[in-house]
């Protein structure tokens, strides 16, 4: 890992170079009362005044909907065409948060634990993540309880930490990161190895350990906690759609006469129809069983099967929830049961 210092007033020069040379640059952009990742064309569009975006950055590698292949029927024959990976744009995410970047590890786990998903992999390979450390946090944040942190470098190609008004520390973590740095070599100078970024980071207290949650879950399938916690859950998909690691999807067909395409689009385990079988049998018939699936999937099944937890502690699901299903609060209470 290489460490550099950039003058704050040089950040925009660097970003400008990136916008000039990369076809798609995504960054947080203010939009009404919310902030979302959008493609930017100029440096002024970036919103630096917000903690996080409503949605996570996962759509950069796992979009809301994407074509799996298209088909064309001619007489009785059918011809299939695949999307060439060249169609996926080289993408830079500017000012992601560490809790965004770290989410690509579980996503990559899901898409590669057995069969390899070439579509996700092709998009991910073309993605460079430039994250900015957090110097503030809010009540929903709990990254430090799930092994992340306001200055965590995991999943980022570059991590920028604002040290003071004038200077920022730039940690180049991967080759992709080096390429981005090289777009503006004059902007950077070697950093003093003694620089300690920890002191400027937000202080986010550790509220529980994910292992505690994991241990409780191994024997919690029939626990009353699921019904208690999920009583107010409305069964919408907001939490899953804004989550940086939720990857459940639906496969759908778009048909126009003899041509069409098969595509996948986001889906959520919170929807009552998610597991409904044609026969009418539903293995997860109540919201309590669906909430249990959500938590178990993230904190038990995923670590057991792919060695990654499905939660980055970003708190987006809680902020997006219409009825304040605060996952931090729920996890703390689960971890405390495991203590008893």
């Amino acid at each position, binding site marked *: 890992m290489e460490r550099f210092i950039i003058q704050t007033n040089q950040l925009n020069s660097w970003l400008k170079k990136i916008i000039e040379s990369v076809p798609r640059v995504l960054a947080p952009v203010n*939009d*009404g*009362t*919310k902030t*979302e990742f959008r493609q930017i064309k100029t440096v002024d569009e970036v919103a630096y005044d917000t903690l996080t975006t*409503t*949605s996570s950055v996962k759509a950069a590698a796992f979009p*809301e*909907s994407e074509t799996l292949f298209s088909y064309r029927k001619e007489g009785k024959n059918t011809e299939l065409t695949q999307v060439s990976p060249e169609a996926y744009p080289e993408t830079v995410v500017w000012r992601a948060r560490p809790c965004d970047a770290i989410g690509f590890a579980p996503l990559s786990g899901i898409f590669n634990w057995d069969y390899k998903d070439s579509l996700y992999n092709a998009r991910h390979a073309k993605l460079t993540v430039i994250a900015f450390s957090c110097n503030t946090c809010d*009540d*929903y944040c709990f990254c430090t309880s799930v092994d992340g942190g306001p200055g965590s470098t995991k999943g980022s190609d570059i991590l920028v930490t604002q040290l003071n008004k004038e200077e920022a520390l730039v940690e180049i973590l991967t080759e992709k990161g080096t390429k981005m740095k090289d777009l503006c070599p004059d902007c950077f100078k070697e950093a003093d190895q003694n620089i300690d970024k920890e002191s400027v980071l937000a202080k986010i207290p550790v509220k529980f350990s994910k292992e505690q949650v994991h241990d409780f879950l191994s024997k919690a399938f029939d626990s009353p906690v699921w019904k208690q916690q999920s*009583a*107010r859950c*409305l*069964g*919408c*998909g*907001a939490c*899953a*759609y*804004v989550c940086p690691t939720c990857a459940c999807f*639906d496969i*759908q067909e*778009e048909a126009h006469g003899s041509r069409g395409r098969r*595509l996948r*689009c*986001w889906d*959520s385990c919170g*929807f009552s*129809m998610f597991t409904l079988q044609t026969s009418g049998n539903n293995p997860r018939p*109540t*919201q*309590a069983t669906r909430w249990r699936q959500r938590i178990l999937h993230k904190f038990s099944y995923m670590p057991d099967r792919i060695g990654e937890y499905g939660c980055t502690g970003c708190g987006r699901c*809680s*902020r*997006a*929830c*219409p*009825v*304040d299903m*605060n996952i931090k*609060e729920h996890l703390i209470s689960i971890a405390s049961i495991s203590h008893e």
Partner: protein
Amino acid sequence: MNKLNEKAAALLQEGTVKLIIGYEQGTEKPRPLFCTVPEDASRLIFNDQCKNNLAVYLTKKEIIGDEKIAVIATYYVMKSIVQLDKENQINKDNLIVLTVDSDGEVIEFNDYQEMEKYADEHVPAPDPKVVAMLEKIDNMSREERWAYWKSELTKCIRCYACRAACPLCYCNRCITEVNCPQWIDPWPTPLSNMEWQINRVMHMSGRCVGCGACAEACPLDLPIGLLTKKMAMDINAEFGSSDDGNVLSTFNPSDKENFIH
């Protein structure tokens, strides 16, 4: 302990009800609370920040069960209960409706007429922001309106929080889940998002109580509450207030015809 907490604790203590649905303080604003034991009652609050429409739970069998329950109702919860009752979705015998007046006194309604009367005497003032926005859109040219809505609805991620938060969206199988034929594409595009909202509004016509829970629920803060609000205003202007609920399930031979040539 205030009167609401006392009343709720007593109802549970006496065994009058098995469950009380009310509000508690959440992370940043009030959220729904389900009290099953008297101890829970101390967490109950009631103020004008209580925005969730709790009537949404009254059609969920897995939540309310078969026994008597109570709900602590805002104006919009009461209006929703009236509408749900018109649609035969409520078991009146098993539901106690409570509210809290401006002095902190708890009111228990003996019947729905009393509740409706109370509600009609306590209509909240319309949100000036919504009124202003509606006027602004009405004054736009058609092209501007199209551009505005296309831009807003392009952001929709189709999480269906609007549907889930609405007490009157209680279909077992929503039109979006009907796939023979697939009326509305389940993935987000400006068009399918718009089709979804048009369907939502059309299915709500004459039924919507105007609580704004749909807009409140939207994680992206899309102005979808304007659609139902506008629809309700149009319906009022075209047909007057209708007593039997769904204006589209009935008609008047003298409905206007000026657009039919």
